[in-house]
């Protein structure tokens, strides 16, 4: 038994593969936050006035708000004046016009991350928007997408080239004063991705954004807005990594999705921000607001997430099901090891008739991590015939971690059916023994069991991501056998 636990101790140590940093010319605003900083950000981006006003309004609102404290996470008070709110790899004025102009070091960075930006790349069929610290560095496959009428560009470009769309939809799902971190994002967000799928178009390829935090002591505040017009369809992937730094860094993103009649948006995330070291030193605070509105009839929004990184994760990708017969889905795998803290889940707000939602959440806790599922299923009075099914399973590896489930179920319609189930289990010694007895190593046995545990969620990920997610899980849990 003692040798077994020693093995565990040893094996629990894992290394963060994406912990390198890139040494390139950067322009960073000095730390601090006030209206001048916001004006400076807006000016750097040559934003129209409506954007500046929107930011300032958000900032003023933010000043009146309190940081939320209800989540099952603990961290020292964040000094928002010690954070730099803007970092860019090059001065914005001579931003790259094409890949050839991109700093080779940057391209190298993305190669290391396994995200080739070259359009000839082997990941054919996936259009990539890469966001490095606060700005989008390049978007691939623009022409091909353009032929289909799809707009896929950085948020900054969208503000310039499609201001009418931005003005029409920005902040309509997550209002600038929605919550503390969303308000902060609205005030200072520097870039992100913008997607517009016109009526009846099935986006010809997967769209993907890779986020990378590189600079030290900066916050990253990106914003993604996806609009799927009537009858359109899009699948969007998001991946994130950050270098290994001793100090905590803040990431407060906002994602807004809008699905009109018969439209479908599938949004997948593999989040692998730097989680901090074994002692909980460093790592990203990932405070993210993601929400989609199924505005149209028969529309569908599906969130799939694999949350493996970050020191603290605070995110609840949600669906507001307004349109009759609309569908919301949430598939999640959240892995916490060492000192990681996760408080994540979803909200399904049923407003329209015959709206349906499914929640499948798999939480894995190892080391001294705490992993909480927090979810709200709300059936409003008019949501005749609404259905929800929720399943939350927790797997514990080791006796010093925690797994928590906090579902809120509020039902006001007597024709609704809501069902929630949750279980907590550990990897059984008998399971491991059985597999070992069949000649499988302990590590592989754990991976097999963990992958089996997460199967329903991985099945929802696009192929390339599913492979990445499985590999990521294996790394995250290296040897964390309970």
């Amino acid at each position, binding site marked *: 038994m003692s040798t077994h636990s020693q093995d565990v101790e040893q094996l629990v140590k894992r290394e963060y593969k994406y912990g390198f940093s890139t040494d390139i010319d950067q322009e960073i605003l000095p730390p601090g936050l006030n209206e001048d900083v916001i004006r400076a950000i807006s000016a750097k981006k040559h934003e129209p006035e409506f954007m500046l006003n929107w930011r300032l309004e958000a900032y003023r609102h933010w000043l009146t708000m309190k940081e939320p404290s209800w989540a099952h996470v603990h961290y020292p008070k964040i000094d928002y004046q010690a954070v730099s709110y803007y970092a860019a790899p090059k001065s914005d004025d001579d931003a790259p016009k094409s890949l050839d102009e991109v700093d080779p070091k940057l391209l190298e960075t993305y190669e290391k991350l396994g995200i080739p930006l070259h359009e000839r790349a082997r990941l054919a069929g996936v259009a990539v928007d890469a966001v490095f610290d606060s700005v989008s560095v390049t978007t691939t496959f623009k022409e091909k997408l353009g032929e289909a009428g799809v707009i896929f560009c950085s948020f900054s470009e969208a503000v310039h080239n499609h201001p009418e769309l931005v003005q029409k939809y920005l902040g309509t799902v997550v209002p600038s004063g929605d919550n503390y971190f969303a308000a902060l994002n609205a005030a200072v967000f520097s870039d992100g991705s913008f997607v517009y799928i016109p009526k009846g178009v099935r986006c010809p390829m997967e769209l993907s954004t890779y986020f990378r935090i590189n600079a030290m002591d900066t916050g990253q505040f990106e914003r993604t807005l996806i609009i799927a017009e009537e009858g359109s369809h899009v699948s969007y992937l998001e991946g994130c990594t950050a270098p290994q730094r001793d100090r905590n860094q803040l990431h407060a993103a906002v994602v807004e999705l809008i699905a009109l009649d018969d439209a479908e948006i599938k949004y997948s995330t593999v989040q692998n921000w730097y989680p901090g070291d074994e002692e909980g030193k460093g790592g990203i605070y990932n405070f993210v607001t993601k929400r989609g509105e199924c505005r149209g009839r028969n529309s569908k929004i599906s969130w799939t997430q694999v949350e493996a990184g970050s020191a603290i994760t605070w995110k609840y990708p949600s669906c507001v099901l307004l349109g009759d017969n609309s569908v919301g889905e949430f598939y999640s795998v959240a892995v916490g090891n060492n000192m990681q803290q996760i408080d994540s889940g979803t909200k399904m707000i049923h407003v329209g008739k015959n709206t349906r939602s499914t929640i499948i959440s798999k939480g894995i806790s190892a080391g001294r991590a705490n992993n909480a599922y927090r979810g709200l299923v709300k059936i409003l009075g008019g949501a005749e015939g609404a259905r929800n099914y929720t399943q939350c399973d927790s797997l514990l590896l080791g006796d010093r971690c925690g797994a928590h489930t906090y*579902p809120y179920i509020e039902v006001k319609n007597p024709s609704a059916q809501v069902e*929630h189930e949750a279980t907590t289990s550990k990897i059984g010694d008998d399971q491991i023994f059985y597999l070992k007895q069949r000649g499988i190593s302990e590590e592989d046995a754990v991976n097999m069991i963990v992958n089996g545990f997460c199967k329903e969620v991985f099945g929802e990920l696009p192929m390339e991501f599913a492979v990445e997610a499985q590999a990521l899980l294996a790394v995250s849990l290296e040897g964390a056998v309970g």
Partner: protein
Amino acid sequence: MSTNALSQHYAEQVQRLQDGLPGAIPEWLAGRRHGAAARFSEAGFPDPRQEEWKYTNVRPIATKPFMAAVSDAPVSEEALRAMGFEGLDAYRMVFVDGRLRTEFSDLGELPAGVTVQGLAEALASDPDPLEPLLGTLAHDRFSSFAAANMAFLTDGAVIRLGKGVRLERPLHLLIVGSAGSPATWSHPRVLIQAGEGSEATVIEHYADLEGASGFTNTVTELRAEAGAQLRHYLLQDHADSAYHVGSVFIQQRRDSRVTSHNVNLGGRLVRHDLNVDLTEPGAEIELNGLFLVGGRQHVDTHTRVHHSSPHTTSREQYRGIGQGHGRGVFKGRVLVERGAQKTDAQQHSANLLLSPNAEIDTKPELEIYADDVKCAHGATVGQLDETSMYYLRSRGIDAEAARGMLVFAFADEVLERMELAPVRTSIERRLAARLPEAGAIDVIG
């Protein structure tokens, strides 16, 4: 923390209490009551902005000027009999407006080793043995209501079972409110100490005399020593105009087993908190609950099961039915402490929502810090099963009656776990009477 500050009425009540606590009571008790009064006055009534009170606004209680009853209300034996359980052979203590009425009570011949007393009497005659039992599981900090109960403590029941004693007949505590004017509040306290290997059934039963609309604020402290077996019935059948807040604290030692049956049929605004601490290996709790809300009733039940030792077991099943404009709330928390390996916890909350104006909120929670555990919870909110409806109709039963049968059956699955047949049958009848469509069900005992 946001609170509803005490109204002038309650501030005055606290002041009067603090000025007037009799000097004759022991120092430890005076200290606890003063502390509780200060705590109540400082915290005020809870506010829905507090997570624990998210779904229940106690403003209706906080804004009414409830007063303690000044004199014994007239009560007839007949009225009490109507509230009782036909065919139940039990010891009986009757409380009216929070005060023990010995003339209606019957403790017959208690076996040796069993003490059953009124709390006021016990405090007057021999208070010191109560020091470790009174206000030690229930902390003032738990809630303003628990604090108010301690501050305004008047009477209650003290039940002590010696080592290995078995109380054959159940003990029925019938605690009723009268139609006082102004409306009364009372703060009954029930202390149960079940010694090693003892066994008993205690029925805590709240009801009202005709026309009552008072506020009953109760605290129960129950200790089950090693190997004790206790069955605790918490039956709330108040008038629909009455208010009730009850806080129950159960502490269990090695191999003890407690079964709790909590049924809520009446009341305008009701809140129950059942707190269970399984402190030693082998301790086992079974929590069965049923609430039925109709009219404008609001019933909120919170349970917290704390597995603080390895090898402890909990089984929890709560069912709720929402009709009319009723609102039912269930929040069940299971906490497994670090090191509490081999915990086996199962919790289920099932609810039927039968009216477009009713609401059900349910929040089952698991908080787990140990890995070698078996924990599961589930919650459902829905309607009657259509296939069952069809099956019954295909037997010639009309849709209305079929619905009544199924709703009744849904509730009865919880009531069936009651060991005392007369109590179960009587509750079933009262339940059927409250389900408009099940009114015709002839309860076959």
